[in-house]
């Protein structure tokens, strides 16, 4: 009896889907969502300034904190991800084991627990400020996810490329830097973009550390005014607007980088 093997690849990102230029369904969905969000926020603020304008005025420093945490932790995550990704394909046993263990451990612990751990548990030993703790936790967590993305991206480059590069006299690190990584980057960008958006959304978790991000500011407003519906509606819309803009930027970048595939 012959067993029939069927392999299907399902591509699912945990972040907001980046619309592909060829995908007109998603493309128009993006416009519907984008215009709808702008229209909603505009309508609420202009025609119902009380309380929506007050809420909007309460949030800007929170938005700033959210961006700070997002950008700092994505930088940390990219560095850690690159190191972890290289470690996973490294022939150096120790480096490989260290990178793999890091990824396994971090991926097995919920982000919320990591945040609590770094802030409150390790807080007894090292006194990290709240923002730094948030950035470290987010960076380490997403670094592990990025590590897998980098590994897959590097692996996707045909082995012939490195063979050719090595035979031309480049050493291993030069091959990685000048030949493999620049090509891998194009494969890596879409999933990294997804992680970026997912990270931005997950920064809402840092409000648990009393970091005054968008969500914490909103909760403070709601707890004092009892306007729960109004506050959380606006907060959801603001997050949506930010992620929609980001996903558009990323899809444009991706389009530019896919020049060779389009030719």
């Amino acid at each position, binding site marked *: 009896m012959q067993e029939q093997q069927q392999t299907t690849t399902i591509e699912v990102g945990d972040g907001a889907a980046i619309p592909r230029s060829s995908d007109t369904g998603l493309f128009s969905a993006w416009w519907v969502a984008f215009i709808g969000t702008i229209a909603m926020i505009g309508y609420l603020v202009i025609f119902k300034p009380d309380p929506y304008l007050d809420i909007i005025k309460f949030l800007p420093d929170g938005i700033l904190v959210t961006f700070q945490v997002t950008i700092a932790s994505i930088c940390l995550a990219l560095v850690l991800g690159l190191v972890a990704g290289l470690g996973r394909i490294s022939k150096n046993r120790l480096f490989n084991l260290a990178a793999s263990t890091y990824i396994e451990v971090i991926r097995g612990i919920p982000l919320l627990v990591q945040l609590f751990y770094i802030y409150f548990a390790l*807080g007894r030993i090292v006194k990290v400020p709240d923002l730094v703790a948030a950035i470290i936790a987010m960076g380490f967590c997403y670094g592990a996810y990025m590590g897998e993305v980098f590994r897959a991206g590097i692996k996707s480059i045909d082995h012939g490329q490195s063979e050719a590069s090595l035979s031309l006299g480049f050493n291993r690190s030069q091959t990685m830097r000048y030949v493999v990584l620049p090509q891998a980057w194009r494969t890596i960008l879409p999933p990294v973009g997804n992680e970026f958006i997912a990270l931005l959304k997950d920064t809402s978790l840092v409000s648990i550390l*009393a970091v005054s991000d968008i969500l914490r500011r909103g909760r403070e407003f709601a707890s004092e005014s009892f306007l*729960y519906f109004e506050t959380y509606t606006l907060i959801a819309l603001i997050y949506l607007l930010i992620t929609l803009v980001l996903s558009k930027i990323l899809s444009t970048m991706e389009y530019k980088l896919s020049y060779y595939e389009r030719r």
Partner: protein
Amino acid sequence: MIKKLILTILLLLAFSGQCLAEKKIVFAVDATWPPMEFLDHDKKLVGFSTDYMTAAAKAAGFTAVFKNVAWDGIFAGLASGKYDAICSSVSITDKRKKAMDFSTPYFKVRQALIVPKASTAKSLEDLKGQKVGGQIGTTGYFAIKAVKGVKPKSYDEVGLAMEDLNVGRIAAVVCDDPVAANYAMDKYKDTLKIAAVIESGDVEYYGIAIKKGNKEVLDLVNKGIEAVKKSGYDKELNKKWIGQ
């Protein structure tokens, strides 16, 4: 036919059962506020407030059911009818009165300022430019916000603020005085102390928050509170939980 008959009987039984039983009032409690309401080692809801309300229920003839709920959102849950009342050290304020009804006051508190042992601060004004923590949406947090120059920091639970103060990330915590006493004289007695009871703040009273317009529950709760006060049981509870 038989099925229908059984169903009717069952329904009748169910209804009559409900009519015979005492009125059930569900109270939301944020059990992170020792000694007023908290979870003991057996994960049981205990404290001054729950004891008080259980006694009030007995006196007024209703069944008190306590439901552990997170503080942030506790008022939203009341407005949307997830429970009938809040028995969770809710201070009666004018702003809150607009959003909900309150029972007669059952406990008097002030806001206390907790600082590390080594601190010389005697009031919130001494802490200008520094971070002071409180639980989100509490009168303690509002007291911090009212002082210009102090950086307010809101926590989900007062215990997290205390831990941050203990570690040294913030300069002080403001909360209700019985809770402050519990932390500064028991859990963190080696590191923290009560610097002052905030003078600028008014005396506050705890009341049971009840959904606006729910007269039936309000009357029952008030009746219970009156009875407890008359019996003197509240003094006993004071001794038991607060030690005064």
